[in-house]
């Protein structure tokens, strides 16, 4: 078994309006960051898990995203995986 750290990014789909992102965009413009064109606001998760292999960890995290972390009707997700440590 190895320990893995998954970093999961969930964001609103391009076809879904994102009022939070638009409000942050307005705020950035008011601060003088006039070059900012688009802001999409999402969520970030760090998940530590154990698995027999990177492949299995990847499958597990993908399932977690589809079943709970993201709502597939309105959100997209992506993640990366990093080996944390080796245990027994």
């Amino acid at each position: 078994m190895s320990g893995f750290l998954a970093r999961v990014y969930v964001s609103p789909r391009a076809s879904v309006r994102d009022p939070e992102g638009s409000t942050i965009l307005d705020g950035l413009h008011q601060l003088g960051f006039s070059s900012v064109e688009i802001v999409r606001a999402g969520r970030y998760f760090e998940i530590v898990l154990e698995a027999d292999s990177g492949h299995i960890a990847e499958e597990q995290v993908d399932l977690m995203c589809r079943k709970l972390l993201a709502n597939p009707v309105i959100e997209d997700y992506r993640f990366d995986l990093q080996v944390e440590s080796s245990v027994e």
Partner: protein
Amino acid sequence: MKVGVVVFPGTNCDRDTVAAVEAVGHVADLLWHASTDPLPAYDAIVLPGGFAHGDALRAGAIARFSPIMPRVVEFAHSGRPVLGICNGFQVLVECGLLPGALLRNDSLQFRSEWVHCRVEAPVWGLQPGAVLRMPIAHGMGNYFPDPEAPSVEVALRYCDPSGRVTAAANPNGSWDNVAGIASGNVFGLMPHPERAISDVLGSRDGLYIFEALTRALVAV
């Protein structure tokens, strides 16, 4: 006839909902979310409003894992009526009994105010064209349809007092002014009919929804 009203940690409209069921002449029991008892004793189930599990992750996303939920889904599949109000509507959407999703209000504000909505479909014998005045109180009521789901039956649309569906009457940015949808025997709406059951509360129009639930009971 007997109605089960599910209570999740964070539900806060359960007793009002029981009062509304009683106001139309029926009996209601509160059902704790951790119960795994079967539900055949009930003729209808209501998921009331509130903030189940503190709305963690997304409103309704955690409530769907409550032990009672597989029973509620089974109950719905048996053809008996299930009504979701506000947070209950969000739970029905998250657990897949109704299509689509409820996004944060486009204003980013929690909206607590009186609205009007027009009946669009004869769900449970509701009269299309009827205009109902009921309160809303939500931060995530902005309905977004699932492009891959079969077309949704729009039951209620936000409108002005005269029944015109206008952008100004839409309190949350909901797609097509949707205030409530139905799929077969499952009905979800964002307004709170249980808060509009007597003149003292400002409106009796909510009784119309609970009377409709009664008709659904009879029809089963």
